[in-house]
């Protein structure tokens, strides 16, 4: 009975994509490095579109440099653009790390970003000797990140970038540090903070590869804001170097696991990459067990109480208000599967899930969720928001969970849209709150229940009187 029905896109045409191209994911990853600067090797749009896209979701500065690839480079190659771009940044910003991120155009013209970066590194070393004010520029870690836009999605681009950073920066080290490496995936700051909160509660040190939690959700404190502008926080280059000495690496999102495997094969750091994201009770339990496996830690009462508080709210609302309501979820393949599991734990029916990416794990993980919860689930694989729209209009759906681009579907159908994923720009505060962990499950339960109460109970308002 239970299982999934995988529905692939039949059109060539993509209408209202649920994905974007690899470079965005790469820039996201680089911004999570302390004093890290992404430089995209492409035309102006490759930086300005992404800056716009990220800024409207996070409402934070998003500083991305561009190599300014134009006709000349198309003809003669972009070596000069990369080299002078990196030097410009290295000298003017004095960063700790620069990500040199390729695009469709730079890949098509055949630019060898690895070679160019080698050259640039040498030039930086020379510069460092040349002038006293350039001293130290040779220490800037320049990470070549090959992310052609016509391959994969922003999800895979993120995975590529984290892996590139690990490959370029991590050093051989024999001393164990007792920490756990976490590769978060394209998480919101609130989620990364929640992971850190869990690790801190477990008293387990961590290296977050990478950490956007402050960069994309930073305090407004002009009196201590330095120039050039760098966002607060991020994982330091020294921490990344030391990731080889950790007790293990957990990849939260499946598309982000490449770096974990690199650490395992190169530095013998065990990789845990097969579990669903720690969303909901089961998912978070498994995450805690994974940490226990790697570090042999105890789960403190504080976390068990957080777990209990979430269950307490679930008990209050799930059978009473949520049971059997039909839900459609769309977005990040790894977060969608995790969230589908939470929705099942809330006694709701996951009718359809959709991801714009072509992640093999997506239907597989949904199969697990379907089996666990005894449901039949339509899985729209590598589909778009138009497919979601058509599905929602043709099927019986009570709740939509997805990004702000779906707001028109909600306006047209009257079905409430719980904002989730990326981008969310028509509501505020979402990115700084978690959906991961026990507390994230509580927040999602709250959001969903309140939407249900507003939409489905106000017409029979006496039911709200208890």
């Amino acid at each position, binding site marked *: 009975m239970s299982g999934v029905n995988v529905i692939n896109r039949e059109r060539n*045409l993509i209408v209202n994509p649920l994905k974007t*191209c690899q470079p965005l994911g790469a820039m996201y990853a680089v911004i999570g490095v302390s004093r890290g600067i992404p430089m995209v090797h492409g035309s*102006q749009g490759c930086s300005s579109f992404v800056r*716009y896209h990220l*800024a409207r979701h996070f409402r934070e500065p998003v500083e991305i440099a561009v*190599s300014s690839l134009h006709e000349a480079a198309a003809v003669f190659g972009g070596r000069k653009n990369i080299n*002078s771009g990196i030097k410009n940044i290295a000298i003017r910003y004095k960063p700790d790390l620069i990500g040199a991120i390729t695009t*469709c155009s730079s890949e098509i013209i055949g630019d060898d970003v690895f070679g160019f970066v080698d050259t640039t590194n040498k030039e930086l070393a020379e510069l460092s000797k040349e002038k006293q004010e350039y001293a130290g520029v040779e220490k800037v870690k320049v990470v070549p990140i090959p992310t*052609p836009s016509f391959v994969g999605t922003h999800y895979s681009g993120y995975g590529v970038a984290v892996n590139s950073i690990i490959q370029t920066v991590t050093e051989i080290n024999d001393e164990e540090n007792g920490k756990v490496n976490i590769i978060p995936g394209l998480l919101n700051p609130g989620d990364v903070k929640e992971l850190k909160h869990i690790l801190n509660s477990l008293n387990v040190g961590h290296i977050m590869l990478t950490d956007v939690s402050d960069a994309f959700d930073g305090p407004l404190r002009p009196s201590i804001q330095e120039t050039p502008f760098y966002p607060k926080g991020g994982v330091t280059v020294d921490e990344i170097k030391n990731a080889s000495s950790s007790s293990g690496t957990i990849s939260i999102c499946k598309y982000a696991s490449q770096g974990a495997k690199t650490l395992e094969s190169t530095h013998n750091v065990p990789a845990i990459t097969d579990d669903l994201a720690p969303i909901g009770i089961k998912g978070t339990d498994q995450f805690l067990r994974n940490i226990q496996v790697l570090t042999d830690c105890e789960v403190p009462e504080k976390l068990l109480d957080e777990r209990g508080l979430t269950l307490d709210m679930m008990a209050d609302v799930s059978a009473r208000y949520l049971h059997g309501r039909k839900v459609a979820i769309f977005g990040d393949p790894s977060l969608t599967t995790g969230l589908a599991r939470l929705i099942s734990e809330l006694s709701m029916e996951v009718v359809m899930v959709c991801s714009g990416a072509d992640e093999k794990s997506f239907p597989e993980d949904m199969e697990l969720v379907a089996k666990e919860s005894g449901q039949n689930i339509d899985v729209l694989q590598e589909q778009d928001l138009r497919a979601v729209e058509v599905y929602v209009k043709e099927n019986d759906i009570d709740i939509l969970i997805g990004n702000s681009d779906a707001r028109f579907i909600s306006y047209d159908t009257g079905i409430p849209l719980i904002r989730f994923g990326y981008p969310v720009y028509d509501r505020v505060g979402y990115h700084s709150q978690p959906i991961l962990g026990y507390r994230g499950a509580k927040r999602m339960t709250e959001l969903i229940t309140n939407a249900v109460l507003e939409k489905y109970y106000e017409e029979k308002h006496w039911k709200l009187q208890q």
Partner: protein
Amino acid sequence: MPFKLFDVDKEIPEREKHVYVKHCGDSDTEMDCNKSTVPGCMSERGCVYAGSKGVITGAIKDVVHVVHSPVGCTTYGGGAKRYPSRPNMPDGTTFPVENFNLKYVCGTDLKESDVVFGGMKKLKQSVQEAYKEFPFTTAIYCHATCTTGLIGDDIDAVCKELTEELGIDVIAYNTPGFAGPSQSKGHHITNDTMFDQLVGSKEPPKTTDYDICLIGEYNIDGDLWVLEKYLNEMGINILSRFSGDSTHNEICYMHKSKLNLVRCQRSATYIAELIEEKYGTPYINVDFFSTEYCADNLRMIGKYFNLEEEAEKVIEKYHGEVKEELEFYKEKLSGKKVYIFSGGPKSWHLSIPLEKELGMDVTAVASQFEHEGGYKKMKERVKEGATIVDDPNSLELEEMIKTDRPDIILAGIKEKYLAYKYGVPSIMIHSYENGPYIGFEGFLNLAKDLYANIYNPIWDLLEFDSFPQKESAKDGQNEKVDKELMEAGK
């Protein structure tokens, strides 16, 4: 001498000629502009494709866009701009989907194999599918991007074939992102394409003696609707909008207007000139930002059509509605330092109005993609000592903020949150905050937004003040806390 090299630019001296400090004795100096950005800068500029899809074609309400690209350009081309539209069509019918232009964007989602083997077949299938998906569309616009430019897909050929096959216009816009220094090139290409392929290809259902084209008005946050109201009340008919709240067919009717008004003189003078050249229709540059420019320009249009009295009525009515409130804001805004970092011409449109009508002090203006003419106008309109910047980058803005401490910056979303971090308010002048900003009521909206941002109470709350005499509390005679100190601490 009037050029300025920012401290942060000492490693990229080529920036010096992009930055000019107004000096009255030196009005002829030409700044560098419309050149490629220095690699490695955090520029605000967009690409050529953005200038076409993001500015001009995307505002048209009844066409399907097929972006011929890997997915990113399609994603970024969708629903990002604030140009609303109403579903009314020139023939009196209603378009079946409201805000169709904001709701949908299509693309060919190119993969590696397409890059290797070419994407023309995929484009063709995609356009066919797009027509199947949205059979009510008036036309289909295909956009070239970096990838399709570089792999050499002949999208003109595909579109021509499809036009015949489908029986509706399928138009190719050859705007690969890299094909120019900024979005400005995209404006130009799109003007040319529309003139070549659309203007004159259809005849309007009816014409009047008072038909105009409103060119270069994209209806950002409803700007066009404000102007439309004024013009309609004067008795003037907008035959064709280029391109806010417009329709595909309206663009085709442009040759039939009696007068063309050019609102955004950076992105749309091209087509006005081409029309004048070919069809003899005169055009005039218009400016409706601020009450004074708006009144002047309505009068000018009134004069042209012998509708002077009607123009005066409109001016009296709408100016009257905002006068008093504007006085309040002028008092509050007087002396406040403001930067105008616009995409193109707003830096010169707004500099005098902000000073004259709101009493503000414009100490810097900048543009992402202006050309010589625009910078000349800026030079004429800012006062001695004001800084003019072409294609500013983040470090330059940071330096300006640190040294000059403006009270507010009119800019885009990319500068906005950066300015905040330094404690400087910023409002979005490309897409607006609570617009429209044009016309009489629009200028009041702008004044309100300036006021709300500059006087936002949070700017007085930025720092936590510890209890100042905290240390001395230890010295009190009483081991418990001194009551007076506690009072003082409140």
